[in-house]
């Protein structure tokens, strides 16, 4: 049984943490939050120089050729630091979409730019509130021209290239569109977390390429979302863990009624429960990372579990953070709201936890109940032997 990251991956984690502790204190997130800047150019430049964005992109396309376990380690550290940079949009979504669905030519054309960090990518799906699945997509790809509108696209205001769900001639498609080209209108949208920017995109016959087959766009989109969900789960996990640590520290140092508030059982039990939720989320995220890095069919359900578990854990951690800080936690000047905003934003961008739970049951429903039998202590390797 080796259900953990390797020593090399842990070394990478330490290196990433040290860099971010030095270069991305929470004040970096706050600066973007309080300014008009869509992201921290300085931090993005630093991350790009370290090449983290290239981690899981194959060397043939300008990447570093490591795997998704290494990328997961970095994602968790980025999450801890609440980084205000377009890493997730460009790497978990756009780069993964190219890897899943792109032709050799498309990969060669787009991935090196994303790998070098010179270009930023994103993914656009929702056209109205509540939209999660393939139904009701009105954006059309017709003879290499894209027409329609997408809302709340993460980093849509700064990205150079987007992968967009659309209706094609034979059904659903993914379209690859240059956001800096003609026929693209961007409307910056206020974000619940202004340290991460959003935009509505309007396409008026924008030149676009088909990414993957015509008619299977949604199944490709689901594969992209599954992969992004696992990586995003690590960001959420990192955020939850950091919120938990700050809160624990605060309750140990805050005195009321002559004792640290952390000595009251009402507080201890809440922190214990939060710890348990984060540990469960961590375990689900690890399983997702295993499935992703081994390209195992389990990813279809593992991604749902990782995503829903991490979304819930980060949201709970951020809510408990404010509650256990008391009144001071509700002020602008204390950092609690940075976590509260980021947790809700990350919980929204790939679809809500409820939507992922529904996707999970849809997929489990296709399996025979016998395949769902519990094996509480057994490892898969022991079971198959």
């Amino acid at each position: 049984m080796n259900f953990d990251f390797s020593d090399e991956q842990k070394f990478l984690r330490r290196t990433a943490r040290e860099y971010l502790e030095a270069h991305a204190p929470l004040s970096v997130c706050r600066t973007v939050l309080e300014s008009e800047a869509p992201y921290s150019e300085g931090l993005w430049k630093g991350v790009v120089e370290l090449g983290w964005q290239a981690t899981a992109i194959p060397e043939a396309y300008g990447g570093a050729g490591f795997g998704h376990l290494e990328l997961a380690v970095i994602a968790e550290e980025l999450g801890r630091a609440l980084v205000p940079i377009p890493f997730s949009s460009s790497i978990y979504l756009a780069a993964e979409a190219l890897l899943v669905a792109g032709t050799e030519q498309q990969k060669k054309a787009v991935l090196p730019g994303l790998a070098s960090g010179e270009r930023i990518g994103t993914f656009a799906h929702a056209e109205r509130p509540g939209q999660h699945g393939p139904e009701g997509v009105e954006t059309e790809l017709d003879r290499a021209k894209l027409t329609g509108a997408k809302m709340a696209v993460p980093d849509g205001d700064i990205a150079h290239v987007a992968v967009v769900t659309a209706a094609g001639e034979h059904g659903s498609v993914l379209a690859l569109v240059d956001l800096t080209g003609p026929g693209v209108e961007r409307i910056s949208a206020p974000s619940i977390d202004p340290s991460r920017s959003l935009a509505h995109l309007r396409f008026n016959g924008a030149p676009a390429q088909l990414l993957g087959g015509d008619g299977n766009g949604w199944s490709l989109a689901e594969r992209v979302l599954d992969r992004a969900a696992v990586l995003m789960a690590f960001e959420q996990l990192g955020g939850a863990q950091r919120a938990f640590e700050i809160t624990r520290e605060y309750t140990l140092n805050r005195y009321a009624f002559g004792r640290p508030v952390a000595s009251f059982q009402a507080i201890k039990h809440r922190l214990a429960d939060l710890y348990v939720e984060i540990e469960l989320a961590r375990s689900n995220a690890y399983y997702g990372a295993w499935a992703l890095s081994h390209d195992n069919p389990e990813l279809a359900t593992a991604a749902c579990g990782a995503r829903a578990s991490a979304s819930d854990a980060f949201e709970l951690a951020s809510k408990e953070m404010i509650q256990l800080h008391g009144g001071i936690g509700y002020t602008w000047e204390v950092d609690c709201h940075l976590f509260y905003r980021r947790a809700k934003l990350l919980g929204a961008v790939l679809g809500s936890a409820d939507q992922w739970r529904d996707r999970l049951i849809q997929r489990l429903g296709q399996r025979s109940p016998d395949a769902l039998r519990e094996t509480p202590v057994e490892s898969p390797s022991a079971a198959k032997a």
Partner: protein
Amino acid sequence: MDFDDTPEEAAFRAEVRAWLEANAERLAPGESNEGIAETRGRPGTIQRAKAWQAKKADAGWACITWPKEYGGRGATAIQSVIWNQEESRYRTPSNIFGIGQGMLGPTIMVHGTDEQKRRYLRPMLRGEEIWCQLFSEPGAGSDLAGLRTSAVRDGDHWVVNGQKIWTTGAQYCDWGMIVTRTDPDALKHKGITYFIVDMKAPGIEIRPIKQINGTSGFNEVFFTDVRVPDTNRVGGINEGWSGAITTLMNERASIGGGGGGPDFSALVRLAKETDWNGRPAFEDPSVRQRLARFYIRSKGLQYTTYRTLTALSRGTTPGPEGSIGKLVGAPLRQEMAGFAVDLQGSAGAVLDAPAAPQEGAWQHSYLASPGLRLAGGTDEILRNIIAERILHLPPDVRADKGVRFRDIPTGPRE
């Protein structure tokens, strides 16, 4: 990241499997052994368990984590997990020796005299003698050190009076280990002494406890002027609390989260087979949300176990992190059972087969599940353990600190 054995673990597993293959019958896929809750009271249960234990002992497969000097093989924690995984694949009798071998034997090894080790450990290992734990009392559960069963010195004997409760297997046990109050004028934890007691001694009365689900897995044990020789004292006079702690630490290592009963796959089957207004309940969005939450939680727990096993595989000893298993698993069982009964609507009130689906398994699970949240540390005690031993938050402020045991309040005062 993978789920494979190390080469050493694989070799050990192969050795275990070879012995089991030659000495036991393999279970069919999907089949599992009955637990002691099902087989208790059935004729032959104890004889079968003793015969299997003796067979293991003869081949050196009994109590494998015990040191070699006491008959074990000094196996590591991960080897013990591998043994248990493999043994559970074969048709084997219910284990009635766990409390002795897992908790009391290790306590005797640490705190017992050489004579006690010689006399008791070997028959315990071979299953020739069965042991029970006499800890909880009606007035001392989570607060075990509040125990009041007294032991008074009388020459080279002690005279024990009082009542113990929640004693598993008392009716068939040969020996018990009992914590008693020997100095009520001392501080709470300073007046406790630990003894080995002959369960067939005069003055012991055992009464089964009827649980809310109608079964009787535990007993009350009454002591009236029971004489215990001083040679059966484990550890010093009034120093029994440290021995009790040793026992409880081993309990934490041996209690799992599961607890039997129907599982998630049975719940999915029920949701698919139950009709809600002409459609399977499985298709209802509210049902799907609940099912997904149960699945994600039980999987989270399973993968947490993988992480624990990984740590054991790298040579760590089991720590307080194991508390998560029961704290999540026990309420999860109760919630799943309650949900499954609700799925059946007004018919859910029917307890038994054939009217209740799946032979009433969920109704029975609902009635059995509250016990899982209490036994071996309540949900609340587990939260305290996590808060204090993992998160290092301050201990509770205590009203009984620095007070003679005799003066500690035990109920409302006028």
